């Protein structure tokens, strides 16, 4: 439970590490907006090329970015499949008949069952799933005779393919950009940056300093709470709670047996922490001086100008061309 790798700060060197967190946050937002505005495949390719360049210059390992993307794979494939199956706009690109007969349907059921039983032994689950889907389609496509009681078609339209591709690429770009931000920025710096980027919200009476304080305390206590959860799980396991297996009802009971003590302990902890903070002259909403200062460098201005230029040019391409 301790190694939450996704989106963790990785110490290193490079221009991404030297940038001010404010710059990185704003640039992230600007570039994200730009990816949603561009709608030509060639521009998308340019955007991906740009990210590749950032990764290379920033000396960020592609493996880390992939680790950030991995939880999204299912979502990516789901949206892709959804578009292919249900989007029927644009030119027809590919069509093939599907035959439904007891034999083909039976074979599909067998394939699915085999997949269900063997998937736990296979390392590349997603690839294996895709292979199963293709095999099923292939079976439905090939066995024409006899006893066919219905026929259907499997067809792919141009727009479907294009939409699917765009959604995938946009998701990948967004997640890659945010991964770059989190692995090159310390949580404390990120928090400071967030506080100062959110400062304009003070106009509508949002207390940004308090939000920043809450985030920094949450960051501070995540490892402590994980430790606590581990201890409680061990304690409950020693009393006979099995956290590995069980039916749905048992699973719910396991979670309850973890959550209830966690809640009680956290409340007690926060009470003591509040006392300790107050005892050290913390007054909510009062001005405080800061140990950490953010320093704006020329590099920050350059990066900000470049990303804004990209946003503006993507808007103008969309509007005028």
């Amino acid at each position, binding site marked *: 439970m301790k190694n939450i790798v996704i989106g963790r700060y990785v110490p290193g060197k490079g221009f991404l590490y030297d940038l001010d967190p404010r710059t990185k946050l704003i640039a992230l937002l600007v570039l994200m907006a730009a990816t949603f505005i561009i709608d030509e495949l060639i521009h998308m390719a340019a955007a991906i090329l740009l990210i590749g360049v950032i990764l290379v210059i920033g000396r960020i390992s592609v493996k880390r970015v992939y680790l950030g993307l991995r939880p999204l794979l299912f979502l990516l494939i789901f949206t892709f499949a959804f578009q292919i199956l249900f989007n029927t706009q644009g030119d027809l690109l590919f069509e093939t008949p599907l035959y439904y007969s007891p034999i083909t349907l039976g074979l599909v059921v067998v394939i699915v069952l085999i997949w269900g039983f063997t998937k736990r032994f296979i390392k590349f689950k997603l690839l294996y799933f895709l292979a199963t889907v293709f095999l099923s389609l292939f079976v439905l496509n090939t066995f024409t005779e006899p006893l066919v009681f219905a026929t259907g078609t499997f067809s792919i339209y141009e727009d479907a393919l294009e939409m699917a591709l765009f959604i995938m690429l946009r998701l990948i770009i967004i997640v890659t950009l945010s991964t770059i931000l989190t692995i090159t920025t310390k949580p404390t710096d990120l928090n400071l940056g967030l506080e100062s980027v959110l400062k304009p919200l003070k106009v509508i009476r949002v207390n940004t300093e308090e939000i920043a304080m809450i985030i920094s*305390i949450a960051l501070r206590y995540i*490892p402590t709470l994980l430790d606590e959860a581990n201890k409680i799980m061990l304690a409950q396991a020693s009393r006979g709670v099995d956290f590995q297996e069980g039916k749905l009802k048992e699973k719910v009971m396991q979670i309850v047996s973890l959550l209830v003590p966690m809640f009680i302990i956290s409340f007690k902890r926060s009470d003591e922490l509040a006392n300790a*903070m107050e*005892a*050290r002259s913390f007054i909510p909403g009062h001005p*405080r*001086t*800061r*140990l950490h200062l953010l320093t704006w460098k020329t590099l920050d201005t350059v990066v900000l100008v470049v990303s804004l230029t990209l946003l503006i040019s993507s808007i103008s391409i969309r509007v005028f061309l």
Partner: protein
Amino acid sequence: MKPIIEIKDVSFAYSKQQDVLKNVNLTIQKGEWITILGHNGSGKSTLSKLLIGLLKAKTGTIHVDGIELNEDSVYDIRKKIGIVFQNPDNQFVGVTVRDDIAFGLENLQIPREEMIERIDKFSKKVDMFEYLNKEPQQLSGGQKQRVAIAGILAMKTDVIIFDESTSMLDPKGRKKILEYMKQLNDEGTTIITITHDMKEAVSSDRVVVLKHGEILKVDTSTNILRDKTTLEQSNLELLLPLELLHYMDSNNVDHQSLKDFLWASSLNV
């Protein structure tokens, strides 16, 4: 000597049924080291929370450095009294050691340059200078407690309360904290230790024995430590050497019975 803390007729209750503190009267002098000794539930921690205004007394007054503690003055009084709590994890506010020491200074609106100076100085004082960039989960309980002390020292308070600060530490960590207490007291800081551990009471100037919210006795540490009746009345145990002393005073001791006594009391620990 000038009194720094004056507690007059203070009572406190969490609920209506039972008073946790009853008519406590105590004057603490500047530069003094005082120990508040009591069993669990004797009200000793409640007393410390009253002193820095985390709780409000039902009756009675508290003066700190001549200022009466009330809703208006509580923030000024917290600048004079620092407190190190029991659980090292629940008072570590910063993400790193440096941030944690800075927390109190940021609250006091100390300018940044001075903050950096003080952090360096006081982290050196508690031997945590090399750990300034470490995160709390990389530190032992004793080290976290030392960071807490540095955080209070950096705020330059006149009084430091140690509220069972050593009870969750191993013997080595405890010894180190006791050394710092001694050193700080020598340098003129008023120290209040709250504990049920006799060993912590030994070095202090005076000891206050609390029982069920009332002051049973106030005397010098040497007198209290010998006072078997008072300690037994408040469910506290004598230190072994002193118990031996009493035993030898009241019995005709030969070699064998001495051995028996030591054997029996070592099993009692």
